[in-house]
């Protein structure tokens, strides 16, 4: 069932890669403001599920609706515009442009929408400031620590005020201290209303940041559990 508050609705999503079935009839809904963690062993279909929701890949069968938009009906350009305006993404390996400084990496997301450089950089600076790395705005990714890079990636993901923030193993490439900082960051974001979908196999991250955990096994939802926050 979908309501106005439903941000993500997956219905019978199936994804096959040749003979391999990555997702097998997954149905899932995420409401606005919710923080959902998707967990499971390697190869269970976590990243594939995230790709479907982000419009990075198309399901073999089933429908994916995000904020009322059926992604199956969109062409490549439509999906790009959808991601630009609705989705923020954080990756395990940050995926920053090496040849742009932190500030421009963040501002880039807004500039692609047609924003002028000045206002885009101003908002990027505000975000970096909120995330505590404004003083590193002119540093290039190669000069940033892992935690700093992920903060820049988070800032970039938030640049266009996305309806949904997707995080794929956001602490996977970080040491424990930097991982803690990113977890705090995601928690803070969710507490101010940001809808979150986190793909992880880190139980600590899931229990700390998510209100609901979806466990996948062999491409199917094996279990769902709701977490009570202290």
């Amino acid at each position: 069932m979908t309501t106005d508050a439903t941000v993500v609705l997956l219905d019978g999503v199936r994804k096959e890669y040749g003979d391999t079935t990555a997702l097998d009839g997954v149905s899932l809904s995420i409401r606005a403001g919710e923080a959902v963690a998707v967990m499971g062993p390697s190869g269970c279909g976590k990243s594939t599920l995230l790709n479907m929701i982000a419009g990075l890949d198309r399901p073999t069968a089933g429908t994916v609706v995000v904020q009322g938009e059926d992604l199956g009906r969109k062409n490549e350009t439509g999906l790009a515009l959808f991601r630009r305006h609705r989705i923020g993404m954080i990756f395990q390996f940050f995926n920053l442009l090496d040849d742009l400084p932190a500030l421009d990496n963040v501002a880039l997301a807004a500039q692609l929408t047609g924003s002028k450089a000045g206002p885009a950089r101003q908002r990027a600076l505000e975000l970096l400031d909120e995330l505590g790395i404004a003083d590193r705005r002119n540093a290039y990714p190669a000069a940033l620590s892992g935690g700093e890079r992920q903060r820049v990636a988070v800032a970039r993901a938030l640049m266009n005020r996305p309806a949904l923030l997707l995080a794929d193993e956001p602490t996977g490439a970080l040491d424990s201290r930097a991982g803690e900082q990113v977890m705090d960051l995601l928690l803070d974001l969710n507490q101010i209303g940001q809808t979150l979908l986190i793909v992880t196999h880190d139980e600590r991250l899931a229990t700390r940041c998510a209100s609901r955990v979806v466990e996948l096994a062999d491409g199917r939802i094996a279990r769902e559990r709701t977490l009570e926050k202290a």
Partner: protein
Amino acid sequence: MSAVWRASRAAVRRRRLQTFVIGLVVLLSTASIVVALALLDASSAPFDRAFAERRGAHVVATYDAAAVTDAQLAGHRPDVTAIAGPFRQATVDTSRDGNVPRLQGRPLTVVGRADPGGPVDTVDIWHGRWVTGPGEVVLNEAPPAAGYQARFRPEDDRVTLADGTTFTVVGRGYSISRTADAWVAPDRIAALRPTTVQMLYRFADAGTTSEVDGHVAALRTGLPPDALVATQSHLVVKETIAAGPGAYVPFLVVFGVLGLIVAVLIVGNVVSGAVVSGYRHIGVLKAMGFTPRQVVAVYLAMVSVPAVVGCVLGTVLGDLGARPLLRSAFLGLGFGAEVGVAPWIDVAALVGAPAVVLLAALVPALRAYRLSAAEAISAGSAPRPGRALRVQRALGGIRLPRAVSLGLGLPFARPARTALTMAAVVLGVVTVTFATGMSETVRRYSDLTDLKDTPIAVRPLRPDGGQPVTQRSVPEVEQLLRSVPGTTRVAGGLDLEVSIVGDREPATVYFVRGDVPAMGFADQIVTGRWLRAPDEVVAPSTVLHDHGLAVGDRATVRFGARERSVTVVGEIMSTAPGWPRMVAGWDTFERLAPNYRILPHEMYYALAVAPGTDTGRYLAAIRTADPGLDVWDNGGSNSYTTAVVALSTVLTLLLGLVAALGVFNTVVLNTRDRRRDLGMLKSIGMTPRQVVVMMVTSMAALGVVGGLLGVPLGMLAHRVVVPITADAANLSLAKALLQVWQPGGLALLAGAGLAITVLGALLPARSAARLTIAEVLHNE
């Protein structure tokens, strides 16, 4: 199967596009190399081949008939491999009247010879027959160039000597050793009072001047002193011939050398780029346990597979293409159809092209050999901070769509890769510019020397032999010719022998009237300018040199009792049709010889006709209008010129294509390198169109710069190389041959860089736009 072979095969399969590009570049480069080498070989060989085939004389010796006997000469054979003679030889003067202009009042070396064959100096009888009876003569003339037909008028078949003796020309033959101007039957030479005897010699070793000099010295020994009065070396003859019809050869050689250089550079560029882009893979192989030697072997094997296939196919393609092109190109040099692709060229291409590929791959592969696995994996993955990054940042602030500004910044992120791409683009544009200019120079040279703008020739018939004679005056003939439908321009000319005050040698001046400047004559100016006023002359450098004149000098010319002071205002090409002579305007003629009564047949007219004019009908119309006018078509298809231009065009296209493929390859590598960045950009909302714009912009920027650099460099190369080439061939080139560039053409050439990069980038850019983001990002 060894691990090395397995890894190589996997690499080839994984990089199908790159493998294809390497194979295609090697194929086209090898084809270019084969054509270029065949060109170089053929350029140096035609004379030698024809000389060997016709058993040319290494030394033509002239003996004093009074000092030696025939028996002495026949028995005197120091180190010779073949000998011909003795042939009686006489030098006679032709009459100033009754001969065609080129035989008027000139000395003629006549040799009595029984047949055109023999052990030395086979005379190629290309028209008519050999002398058999009294009053017959065979003239030594080069055969017409391919595409032209010899055309003889009645007056051409007669030679009148100064003493009034008349000979009938029964044939025309060509002696590559230039042993005589004319031949008569041996029993008829006595009438010409020969004073010398000619002997023709071939030696086993006569390739150098010192060897020839040694043989000449040996010829003197054992004979009375002063018996040997003159000798002629085949090396001198070869040099003379090379400066004549072989004028095109140096241009073709330049094309050959250019083809070789560009092909080698592009192959090196593409192959080394392939290895450099594989550093990460090299690191992975090392991490898996491959030894450095095995890694190098994997990469050499990987590039060798397409290289060998491309090389074999390219050799076949080059071979098939070069044969007809060269054969038709060199036919016009009078050397027959001896030109082809020598076997050593195929062997050189089959061995050389893979060797170049391996060498090009070896250098970066050896660098990979020395790198540790970790270094190889990270090689080039992080840009160095510096000016490039500052440029990127500055571009982020300019008022351009972000996809465009990102694209403009991409070249700065990888300066080395950008330099490689830029080199490929510049090289491509330089090549196309230079080759286009060279091709145009060759075409214009051919047009100028053939006077292609004036295809129709008219000469009033002589008042003998019962032929109709025109009753019209010069202006009337000119008016008649202008009135024939189809005529666009008419030029008239008259040769007059004048004397130059203070100079013992007479000079021929060709006085011209009508539309001469507009009919290609003015384009023959090498230095100075064309005629503008009365009492001005222009002349080829040989004529100026013979009379001790230079552009700007004044000279007094005399005809009869009248003198005029004339100024040399320009030097014209020495290869203009007809023999070298001064050219002056008609007003100068009228001032110098106001009372000269021009006989109609002394005038020569050149006509230009409107495009699409039916030549046959046009000629018939002139003959009908005045049967006293002899008219013929000088134009038509010159297969030699066509072949030279075709050869230039083929090489230009081949080299341009090879250069474009080099760029295409670099763009493919760039896109591959940028996969992760592209995936990320798409993940944050970059549309496929923006991806294409960004990638194409990144290369287009290089294309614009490459075009702007390449065009002037190509023009400079043309401006420097063409005169050097012409000098080497003792040619004076008209200014018009160097000023081959038009603004529109230059813009197109500059646009070639842009076109090469945009076309080269479009395919990989579209492929990048279709990248599966999830796969790219999660595979990192």
